[in-house]
C-alpha cells in the first residue's frame, strides 16, 4: 500500500515536473518567445550548475514559451515572470508602459541593447531552390508562394516584414511609396498567415506549402536539422535585418519574490563564455567576439540594417506599420 502510494506520488511529482530529490532554494520564471525553447533548456541547466558551484544554492528556472505578443500580455495581466526574454524590444516596452513593472530605460541596463545574442532573417527554400529565389526582389514575382506569420501576432513576423521593407527602401532610394508597393506584392504572395513563427515553420515543412519560408536564422538551422539537408536549404538575401531579442529582469516581480540577485546573475550569465557558446550552439549569433570567431563559421556575414537607423526605433516602426490602420493593414486590405 505504502509502496503503491509512494510510486503514485513519485509519478505525480514527475508529471508535475519536479524531481523529488532536488530541493530548490530559489525559483525563477523566464517568460520567453516561441523559438527559444531549446536554447533555454540548455542554458537553464548550465546556469543552475554555475550558480550551485558559485553559491551552493540550488536554483530552478521554469520556462514559458509562446508568441512574443501573447507572452508579454500574460506578464502585463499578472503572470509573475522574474525575467523576460522576448523577440523584440517593443513587447518589453509594453510591459513597462502598461503595467509599470520595470523602468522605461530598461534596455540600457545590460550590454548590447540588453540583447546577449542576435539573429537575422533568412530564406528557407526547397532543396535545389527550384524557383531560383535569391533575394527579396524574387519573392514579389507572381507565382511565388511566401510563408511568413502574421506581423500583428508574431514578433518574428515583424522582423520579416521590416527586413523586406528595408531592402525595398534601399533599392528605391528611400521611396516609401515604392517600398509599400513591393511589400504589398510580397504579402499578395502569402497563402497562409500563421499566428507564430513555429506555426509557419510547420506550414512550410510539415504541410509542404510555399516555395520559401521567411524565418529566424536559428529556426532555419533547426529546420535543416529536423527535416534534413536533402529537403530544404538556406538562402541568404543580399540584405537583412539585425534582430536583437532583448532580455531584462522584471523589477517589481523580483523584488516581491526576493530573487533579484539570482535573476540578474541569470541574465549576466548569458553574456559569459559558456552562455555565449550555448547561444551559438542553438544558432543564435553570439556577441562575444572570441566565441563568434571560434564558433561563428556557420554564421555567414551579410549586410544587416538595424531597426534604429532604418526605422527610427521600435515605437515608430510599430506605429507606422503594425498598429490598426497602419501600413500592414493597408497592404493586406482587399
Amino acid at each position: 500500500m505504502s509502496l503503491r502510494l509512494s510510486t503514485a506520488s513519485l509519478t505525480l511529482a514527475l508529471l508535475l515536473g519536479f524531481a523529488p530529490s532536488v530541493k530548490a532554494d530559489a525559483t525563477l520564471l523566464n517568460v520567453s518567445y516561441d523559438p527559444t525553447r531549446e536554447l533555454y533548456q540548455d542554458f537553464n541547466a548550465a546556469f543552475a550548475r554555475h550558480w550551485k558551484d558559485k553559491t551552493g544554492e540550488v536554483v530552478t528556472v521554469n520556462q514559458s514559451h509562446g508568441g512574443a505578443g501573447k507572452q508579454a500580455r500574460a506578464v502585463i495581466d499578472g503572470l509573475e515572470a522574474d525575467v523576460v526574454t522576448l523577440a523584440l524590444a517593443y513587447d518589453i516596452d509594453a510591459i513597462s508602459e502598461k503595467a509599470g513593472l520595470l523602468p522605461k530605460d530598461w534596455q540600457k541596463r545590460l550590454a548590447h541593447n540588453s540583447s546577449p545574442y542576435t539573429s537575422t532573417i533568412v530564406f528557407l527554400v526547397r532543396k535545389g531552390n527550384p524557383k531560383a529565389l535569391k533575394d527579396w526582389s524574387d519573392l514579389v514575382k507572381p507565382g511565388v508562394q511566401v510563408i511568413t506569420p502574421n506581423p500583428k501576432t508574431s514578433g518574428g513576423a515583424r522582423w520579416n516584414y521590416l527586413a523586406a521593407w528595408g531592402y525595398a527602401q534601399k533599392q528605391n532610394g528611400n521611396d516609401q511609396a515604392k517600398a509599400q508597393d513591393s511589400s504589398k506584392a510580397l504579402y499578395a504572395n502569402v497563402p497562409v498567415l500563421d499566428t507564430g513563427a513555429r506555426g509557419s515553420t510547420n506550414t512550410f515543412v510539415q504541410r509542404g506549402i510555399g516555395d520559401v519560408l521567411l524565418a529566424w536564422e536559428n529556426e532555419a538551422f533547426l529546420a535543416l536539422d529536423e527535416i534534413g539537408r536533402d529537403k530544404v536549404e538556406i538562402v541568404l538575401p543580399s540584405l537583412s535585418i539585425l534582430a536583437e531579442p532583448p532580455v531584462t529582469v522584471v523589477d517589481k516581480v523580483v523584488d516581491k519574490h526576493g530573487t533579484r540577485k539570482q535573476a540578474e546573475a541569470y541574465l549576466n550569465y548569458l553574456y559569459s563564455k559558456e552562455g555565449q557558446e550555448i547561444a551559438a550552439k542553438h544558432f543564435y549569433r553570439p556577441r562575444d567576439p572570441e566565441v563568434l570567431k571560434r564558433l561563428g563559421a556557420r554564421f555567414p556575414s551579410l549586410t544587416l540594417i538595424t531597426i534604429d537607423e532604418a526605422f527610427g526605433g521600435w515605437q515608430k516602426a510599430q506605429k507606422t506599420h503594425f498598429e490598426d490602420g497602419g501600413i500592414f493593414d493597408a497592404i493586406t486590405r482587399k
Partner: protein
Amino acid sequence: MSVLAHRLREPSVIPGFGITLGVTLTALSLVVLIPLSALFLKAAGLGFSDFIATAFDSRAMAAYGLSFGAALVAALVNLFFGTLVAWVLVRYRFAGKRILDALIDLPFALPTAVAGIALTTLFAPNGAFGSVLEPLGIKVAFTRLGVILAMIFIGLPFVVRSVQPVLEDLESEVEEAAASLGASRLQTLWLVVLPSLLPALISGFALAFARAVGEYGSIIFIAGNMPGQTEIAPLLIIIKLEQYNYAGATAIASVMLIISFVLLFVINRLQHWRQSRMEGR
C-alpha cells in the same frame, strides 16, 4: 420581496421557488452575467465613434461574415448528417453500433487544437485527402472550405445528441398507424416523423451553430488566416489583444455576442411559437 415573488410567478404546488431561483441567479451572475457585463463595460470605454470604427471596419465585417456564414453552412450540413446518424443509431441494429455511438461524442472531448491539426494534416495539399483533391482543383486546407470543415467536425455531436433521444421515444405505433391509413413511407416520414423531431432539430441546429461561431482552436490551424478572406472573428479578437488593444477586442466580441444572442433568441422564439401553434391545433 415575497409579495413580489408571488406576483411574478404563477402559483405552484412545488415549494422552494425563492431559494432555487436565488441560487440560479447567483450562479448565473457569477459565471455568465458579470464577465459579460465587464466585457460590455470595457467596450463602452472606447466611445461611440471609435466603437463603430473598430467594430464595423471592412476587415471586421469580413470576419463576421465568415464566422457567421461558415457557421450557418456547417450547422445546416450537421443538421442533415447529424439527423441521419441519429436515425441510423436508433432505427437499426448492427455490429459495432455501440462503438459508433461512443465515437460521436469524441469531438466534444478532443482538444480542438488536435482536431485542427489532424484535419489540416489530412487536407493539406500533401496530405492523404488533400493530395487527391488538389488535382481536381478542390482546396480545403487554408480556405473557407477548411473553416466550414472544422466547424462541421466540432458541431456534429450537438445535432446527433439532440435528435437521438427524441427519435428513441417516438412510438412506432404512430408510424404503423400512418401506414395502415394508407400513407406512403415518404409521407410518413415527412408528415409524421419530421414534425415530432422538429423541436429537437431546431435546438440541435442552434447549438451546433453557436458552437461553430465561437470556435477558435481548431479553425486557426486549418484556415489560412488571411485578413478579409479566411480570418474568423475570434482570431481578430486575439489579434487585437496581442496588440494590447483590449477595448478593440471587446468591441468585436460585443458585436459577436449581440448577433449570437439575437439569432439564438429568434430560434428560441420560433420554437416557442411553433409549439404553441401545435398545441392550439
